[in-house]
């Protein structure tokens, strides 16, 4: 299937250098040493250290940044993690393979369906477990609904961070609630879905559910049009986000950035295309790429990705086969994969979510590791914030799209 992978973004004028004074933009790993401030003039005053969070509402949870400010300009920024740390991986080692499935919901609690899928995929790789076709389609449908949900929320939160109090966020949450209603109808829970199983899924989707989901997907473009009319061309949003938090392509690749953040920097890497897991190779969709790698591009990429998700959903509803949802040979009780290891990953809404499992032949994994996309995407937070004002740091953080349940684990 030939798909043109690139959609160019329009309407983002290049900003020469942003407002970053070049002499303080040392990357922490630059060969010249870390954070050497060169003297700029005789008027520079004392530096101020501000601890932002963990209770600050704009940090999207219990995240803390220690920012060193020269006036209002950030010269150093160190993130502090761990306020929500409960050692998820150790708990995963002390329970059975299936026992961890509900707990993966709590990692990135906005996207439990994709977390479930990533975990199920890793275990299926480890055990060599096939998956029925209908389940593969259901997984795609649920993952794309999750992507819609996550990106919609992010757009709302980002606007909230820029100071557009209330209205855009409530528009976004209205749509999100419709998707959550679908999840609840299918799995019994709005957010903690616990839906996937190794070699299948828990319950089948009824024709009524599919009809409702199809209606939602068909109506979603209308919502996006409305939302974009409200936001995308908004002058204040453009002024606050264009040229802010630029991430160079080289840095994005080296720092292991994944998901919409990476593609906003112009790197064509979407695991749905690269790995072609599940039944994704059967769908025709494009991968939007950004030109500038700034905050506006990161917003725009997500809007464009939502439109592609709607296309995938339409194709998936049209192609959905009937059949069983569980592989008849799949084992639920006494599931003990043979010794070995496997790393399985999928393209989650926030980036590459992967699970690395080592089995020693027992009922519990010997090692259970989560590769959390938003934790690794935070690696470049300081690089993006240096030289910008403290108010911009809030927006840059918002555009990374973190969920602390996953960052701290």
């Amino acid at each position: 299937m030939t798909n043109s992978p690139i959609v160019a973004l329009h309407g983002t004028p290049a900003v020469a250098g942003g407002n970053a004074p070049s002499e303080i933009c040392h990357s922490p790993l630059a060969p010249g040493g870390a954070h050497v401030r060169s003297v700029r003039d005789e008027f520079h005053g004392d530096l101020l250290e501000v601890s932002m969070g963990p209770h600050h509402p704009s940090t999207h949870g219990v995240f803390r940044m220690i920012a060193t400010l020269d006036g209002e300009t950030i010269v150093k920024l160190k993130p502090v993690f761990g306020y929500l740390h409960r050692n998820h991986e150790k708990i995963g080692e002390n329970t059975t393979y299936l026992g961890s499935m509900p707990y993966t919901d709590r990692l990135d609690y906005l996207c439990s369906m994709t977390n479930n899928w990533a975990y199920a995929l890793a275990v299926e790789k480890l055990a060599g477990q096939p998956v029925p076709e209908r389940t593969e389609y259901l997984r795609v449908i649920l993952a794309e609904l999750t992507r819609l949900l996550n990106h919609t929320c992010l757009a709302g939160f980002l606007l909230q961070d820029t100071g557009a109090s209330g209205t855009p966020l409530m528009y976004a949450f209205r749509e999100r609630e419709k998707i959550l209603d679908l999840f609840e109808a299918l799995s019994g829970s709005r957010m903690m879905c616990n839906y996937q199983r190794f070699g299948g899924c828990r319950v089948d989707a009824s024709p009524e559910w599919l009809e409702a989901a199809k209606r939602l997907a068909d109506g979603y473009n209308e919502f996006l049009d409305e939302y974009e009319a409200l936001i995308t061309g908004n002058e204040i949003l453009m002024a606050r986000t264009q040229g802010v938090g630029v991430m160079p392509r080289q840095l994005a690749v080296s720092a292991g950035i994944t998901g919409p953040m990476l593609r906003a920097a112009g790197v064509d890497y979407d695991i749905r295309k690269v790995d072609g897991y599940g039944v994704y190779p059967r769908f025709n969709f494009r991968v939007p790429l950004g030109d500038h790698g700034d905050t506006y591009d990161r917003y725009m990429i997500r809007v464009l990705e939502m439109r592609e998700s709607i296309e995938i959903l339409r194709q998936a509803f049209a192609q959905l086969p009937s059949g069983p949802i569980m592989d008849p040979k799949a084992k639920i009780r006494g599931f003990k994969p043979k010794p070995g290891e496997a790393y399985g990953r999928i393209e989650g809404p926030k980036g590459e979510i992967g699970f690395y499992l080592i089995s020693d032949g027992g009922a519990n994994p010997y090692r259970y590791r989560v590769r959390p996309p938003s934790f690794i995407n935070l690696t470049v937070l300081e690089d993006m914030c240096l030289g910008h004002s403290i108010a911009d740091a809030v927006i840059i953080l918002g555009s990374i799209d973190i969920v602390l349940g996953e960052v701290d684990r």
Partner: protein
Amino acid sequence: MESLEQIRDRLLSRYPGAELSILNNPSPSAQHSLVVGGSAAREIAAFLRDDPALQLDFCSNVTGVDWPDKEIVETTRTTIPDPAGGPPKLVEQKTKRIQPGYLEVVYHLYSMALKQGPVIIRMRTGNRTDQVTLPSLTPVWRSGEFQEREVFDLFGVVFDGHPDLRRILMWDEFKGHPMRKDYVEPDDYEWEPTPHDEVLAKAKAHYPAPAAPAAPGANAK
């Protein structure tokens, strides 16, 4: 993409002294890995990143694995001829041997430029107590920065050459490495030394406790 054997052979021809071995993965995933030893790990990593046929520019996942000391019981069977002339006796002898444990760091590498992967490399420490230093690969792949910090925090592997090696998920005063298999949970998670404790200790030194106990209620918290 080249097989792991080909990669190993090319690395060996480039770095003749390098300690490289392939660890086979018996599971259906068939993700075999390359065990890299010694001090040349960073050059090997840079080679893997820059080699035009591999271009493993994306280090996706960095994690640790703890392999504790293992007691291995070996049974040897020897036949001893009976001096009285009867049939030879079969004697079983059990010997216990401790296989020393180690900590392992696993890197999952992909190529964004060529869209291939994964190539998995592993490094192992000498033991679990005093030889826990490994070369950091953060100078090669920036994505190791937080993940190696996490391995340092939770497993206790010290990364030589890491720009900012601090605890990341646990607090700085925390003792121990919770992801190790022999970690014992403390009775009280909540306790941590705070500035308040230091203030109390100072206060104790300055104002020795009164000889007679104070009236009830005077010291109520």
